[in-house]
């Protein structure tokens, strides 16, 4: 089943000069889609349109059979969760309190969190392997720990679609791999879309890749189909070598000569 269908999407900050110029793609349940492309190619803009932070100018966005404009903010928030590149840490909150904020779309006006909410929070904390941190003040966490908390917060929304803007950009290589492994595990029963700068990480962990340039989709498919020297030249104007790991067939490495 398609969790997300995007068709002819045109959006941006200036209707005369749209950032995304007609994107069409779909995402199935259980897929981990990486969006790659040079700076300014529209990766973040595309994410913002799908999470409802940016109104589209043309085209359609359908989230599990509901057109985005027919969903209320709350309904959308129960289906799509967003982890921004940099989330503000809330001074004075513990990890658990922050993750609980992810339950906001489920709270009713005249009541507060119930057993379901607590279960969802505990589950999200477990999935991200941060049980040990759960009573720690957020301001005391390292960058890698905080990123896992931010993802747990989004996961507590129990979304069908988890969207992340450069989840690895502020992390050292150990945490980059750690976060990607966690995300790959999380895609059961939901889909994940994340933007990446690192083509190696993206091609190693994502099941599908979308390559953007100047707001246009110039390639999409499996990492083998997308990460090719020709496509890298088209998108980045860089001559690169792409090598396959002979033992693990799927792993590809992009080398810069």
């Amino acid at each position, binding site marked *: 089943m398609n969790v997300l269908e995007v068709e002819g999407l045109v959006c941006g900050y200036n209707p005369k000069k749209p950032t995304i110029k007609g994107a069409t793609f779909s995402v199935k349940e259980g897929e981990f889609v990486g969006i790659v492309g040079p700076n300014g190619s529209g990766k973040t803009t595309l994410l913002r349109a799908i*999470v*409802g*932070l940016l109104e589209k100018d043309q085209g359609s966005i359908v989230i599990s059979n509901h057109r985005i404009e027919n969903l*209320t*903010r*709350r*309904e*959308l*928030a*129960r289906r*799509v*969760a*967003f982890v*921004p590149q940099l*989330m*503000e840490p*809330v*001074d*004075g*909150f513990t990890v658990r*309190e922050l993750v609980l*904020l*992810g339950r*906001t*779309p489920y*709270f009713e*006006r*005249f009541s*507060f969190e119930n057993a379901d909410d607590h279960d969802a929070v505990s589950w999200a904390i477990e999935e991200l392997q941060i049980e040990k941190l759960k009573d720690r003040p957020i301001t005391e966490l390292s960058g890698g720990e905080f990123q896992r908390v931010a993802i747990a917060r989004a996961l507590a*929304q129990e979304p069908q679609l988890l969207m992340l803007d450069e989840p690895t950009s502020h992390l050292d290589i150990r945490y980059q791999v750690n976060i990607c492994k966690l995300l790959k595990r999380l895609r059961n029963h939901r889909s994940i879309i994340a933007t990446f700068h690192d083509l190696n990480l993206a091609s190693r962990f994502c099941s599908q890749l979308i390559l953007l340039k100047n707001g246009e989709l110039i390639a999409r498919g499996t990492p083998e189909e997308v990460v090719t020297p020709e496509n890298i030249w088209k998108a980045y104007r860089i001559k690169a070598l792409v090598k396959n790991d002979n033992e693990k067939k799927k792993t590809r490495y992009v080398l810069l000569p």
Partner: protein
Amino acid sequence: MSNKAGRSTLLLLALILVVAMFLSLLFGSVFMMPSKLWGSEILWQIRFPRVVLAALIGLLLSLSGVILQGILRNPLADPYVLGISAGGAVGAALSIALGAHFVLFGISSVPVSAFIFAMLAVFVVYKLSQVAGKSAPETLILAGVALSAFASAILSLIIILTGNLQTIYFWLLGSLSSASWSNVLTVIPYALVGLGIAYFFSKELNALLLGEEMAVTLGVEVEKTRTILITAASLMTAAAVSVAGLIGFVGLIIPHWIRLLIGPNHRMLIPVSALSGMLLMVLADTLSRTILSPLEIPIGIIMALVGAPFFLYLLRRRRMEGK
């Protein structure tokens, strides 16, 4: 803070408040032994309504502060600093001066007029401080200070033109000297409605701790929430101003202190701030009646003496932290 710890904190605070209110009843221009208190005219007609009014004003102003700081995401926001109080005072004084002072369906016209002007003030300050869709904390405060000065001048002018110079002191310095049961009845509905709105919007205020965009992705309708909460804060401020004039800094000090003590979770921050605001005002009012007895110092002077240095300290600390 766990729910259980939260409940004990609230209970303890409520208990302290009751004790403080009782002690406050004993003091005044004459000290009264508890045994003589019952049946005394002074108690029932003067001190009791006054202590209750002080507490209610504490609740109104501290909650306005919590709401404004949360919704504007500005730790320096407060109804007095932003000029909402001064705007409200113009409305209240205008209504009294024009003789448009009546009660319709149990609602007094004075707080309604105060509310209209308080809303006008908050709208002007908010719009003025917005640069490219964003509101810079310091700009908001500067706009508030300027508007406050302007509104205070108009307020003084209204009073001079219509007669009683003495009442300028009442309005500008803030005082509970005209407390009465009818005043108490005037503000009670505002306190209840304000508390209810603040409490039931605590989840939106919590989501906003992550920033406006994150709140949107958590399903919060930010514009609608902002309108409702700013209206509620203005209503509460207007009600307080129309019976007690300009009392500053309560809405600044209380939320700050309480946030440092129990954290930013609005579900606790709101009730604890409400109770602490009540307590602070009851104490300040007791001081105002006794410190230079039989002379009474307007409560606004006491709050400014404590609050203005606190505000400066906050400004300085923000600068040092480079925020």
